[in-house]
């Protein structure tokens, strides 16, 4: 007799979860602004929403960057400290369409790495907190140093965002050894400053970087970069590699010998702006290392990246 009851309860729970998932994606963005502020703070003004056509009124020309990353809509709110009229925290929550684009714009804003364990990834300083969760990118800016209130508010916002999308899988392709913390970035176009590379990821590495690098050390350590450019087809990737080669021939230097280690479609040379360069094609991707001093270091990490890209 109890079995049907159990089934009914399970069915109700499942339907509640399903409803929650659906609502997670359809909650109005305004609902992510906590109505209850951290202790000693107050939500003073009604949240303001922005669309693609009005975002520039809020953040001027910077709106172009968000639009390039697929910006859909955003909400803005101000929290003020109760004991002083001057201290405030500005909150912007951006719906970027998907987690790749949210990560992308997050990666362009964060500085080095100062994680706060909020969302899928985060960055925090005494006046500034950034994180992304699912398709949402969140910025909190305080006028004065208020790290505890900043973090409390960020955590409150995070708890209201129910989007459980995973981070972009490509982040995991980049080898950890020598990776500068917080240096992986996603570009929707113009990767490495080249139109022909289109969209993809870039990460910075230190040579001989087997040991862990402290965030405060990153600015004085010379680095080089690994990149992953993604195309619609292998043919398109080969076409871009050809353009890469032409660019090196025209503006830099093209090495006469090519390593067979990375397959037949490979370009090695020196780019006048990026330094030593090695680029190889794998399926619909171009993978490369630029700016390394020792060939071995660049090739080793490129090989590691290549192994991960299926």
């Amino acid at each position: 007799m109890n079995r049907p009851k159990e089934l009914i309860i399970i069915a109700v729970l499942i339907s509640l979860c399903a409803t929650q998932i659906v609502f997670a994606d359809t909650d109005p963005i305004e609902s992510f602004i906590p109505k209850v502020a951290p202790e000693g703070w107050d939500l003073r003004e009604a949240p303001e929403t922005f669309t693609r056509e009005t975002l520039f009124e809020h953040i001027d020309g910077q709106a172009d960057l968000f639009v390039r990353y697929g910006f859909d809509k955003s909400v803005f709110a101000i929290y003020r400290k109760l004991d002083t009229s001057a201290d405030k925290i500005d909150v912007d929550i951006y719906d970027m369409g998907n987690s790749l684009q949210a990560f992308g714009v997050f990666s362009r804003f964060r500085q080095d790495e100062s994680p706060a364990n909020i969302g899928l990834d985060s960055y925090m300083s005494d006046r500034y907190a950034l994180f992304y969760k699912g398709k949402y990118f969140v910025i909190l800016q305080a006028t004065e140093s208020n790290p505890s209130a900043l973090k409390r508010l960020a955590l409150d916002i995070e708890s209201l965002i129910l989007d459980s999308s995973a981070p972009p899988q490509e982040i995991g392709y980049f080898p950890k050894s020598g990776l500068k913390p917080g240096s992986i970035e996603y570009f929707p176009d113009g990767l490495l400053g080249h139109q022909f590379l289109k969209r993809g990821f870039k990460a910075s590495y230190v040579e001989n970087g087997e040991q862990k690098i402290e965030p405060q050390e990153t600015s004085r350590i010379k680095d080089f970069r690994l990149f992953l450019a993604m195309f619609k087809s292998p043919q398109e990737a080969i076409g871009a590699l050809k353009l890469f080669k032409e660019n090196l021939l025209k503006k830099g230097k093209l090495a006469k010998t090519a390593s067979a280690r990375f397959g037949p479609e490979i370009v090695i040379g020196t780019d006048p702006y990026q330094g030593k360069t090695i680029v190889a094609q794998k399926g619909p991707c171009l993978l490369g290392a630029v700016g390394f001093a020792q060939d071995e270091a660049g090739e080793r990490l490129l090989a590691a990246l290549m192994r991960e890209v299926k």
Partner: protein
Amino acid sequence: MVARRRRTPNLRVIEQFLISDLIRNDVDRPKECLEFREGESMSTEKMGRREFIQDASTAVLGLAAAPLLNANVSFADAEKTAEVQYRTLGKTGLRVTAVGMGVMNCSDPAVVARAYDLGVNFFDTARRYMGGRNEEMLGKVLRGKREKVLIQTKVVLAQNEKENRDAVQTSLRSLGTDYVDILLVHNLKTAKEVCSPAVTEFLQAMKKEGKARFTGFSSHTDMASLLKAAAQTSCHDVALVSYNFTHSNDLKDAVALAAKSGIGIVAMKTQAGGYKAADMGGLSPHQAALKYVLTDQNVSAAIPGVTTIEQIEECAAVMGTDFSRKDSHVLQQYDSYLQGRICTMCGGCIGTCPHGVAHCDLLRAFMYHDGYKNDQLAHEVLRTGDAMQKIGQCASCSSCVVTCRRALNIHAQLKTVHSVFA
């Protein structure tokens, strides 16, 4: 001479520019390009040069030998193709390259380095771009070159002075410099704001303290009114405004007025973008659009926003070239493409509908549907206030008296929107 008072869109008289109003480019490269020349008259230098463009051949620039970033590769390895053209930035006396770089969305140091390599000496950024990373990146690339470049940054004025001072100080720290050449107040919206004490007192203080050599403002909306207001005072040295071939003569006249008063005019949004080349049969109007802006000698510099090496090369190559018949043809094609397609928000139709409909707001829905192919954006426009109701009203109106300067068939477009989205 071309008629100074035109009621029609600028493109319609481009041919006249070609025969009577072309510029001669300043091809000299002054040693003291960054020096302030007291008492120098910008207007006499810039405005007295309405001659035919000489067929300037492409010159090879002197090569900078500084090592680049971490690449340990000389700038000299890079190919040089552009001819550098300088103009005087209003009463500041600064000699800026006619094409500067809008650094805003760029995060690859190689692009800034390439711009420098091409001779570009004017870089525009702002504290808020990428949470400060944009300024940091620019500062790093230009390290060791500070005296050879001009940096313009912006501050969003907050309510209290401390916050504003902190913002400027943070900008200087990020840029790795003790001063910026030009400090702008971000995005002023009304003529009243232009010379409000809050704006002018802060900017004067920054100048007095040596944090900014010159100051001014930027604006995206109602720019003609703001420029006219600024021209009546001596509050500002520089104005950064949206300016391209689709804008009305009201703005062109306001730019002339402001320039005559000594304000250095910097043009942004010069490409009138929005439509992709692929949608226009491969037509790429970017160079032509940039040249068009620079034919106006009242514009000291244009700062197209670039994110790739290819883009800055394309833009820099405009310097030292003339506005040709081909450019005219390209822009006419582009304009034809835009004509009947987009509303440029010139405001010319505001107040002309007896029923009080603000058509330019509603026409964005058509632009998103037809141009951007993005019905989601169109829906957003239509969700605003009573937009859908007004469009329905317009679609059924049999006596539309609203006319568009850009020959937009407003009635037909709104009918289309209504039939698609109603």
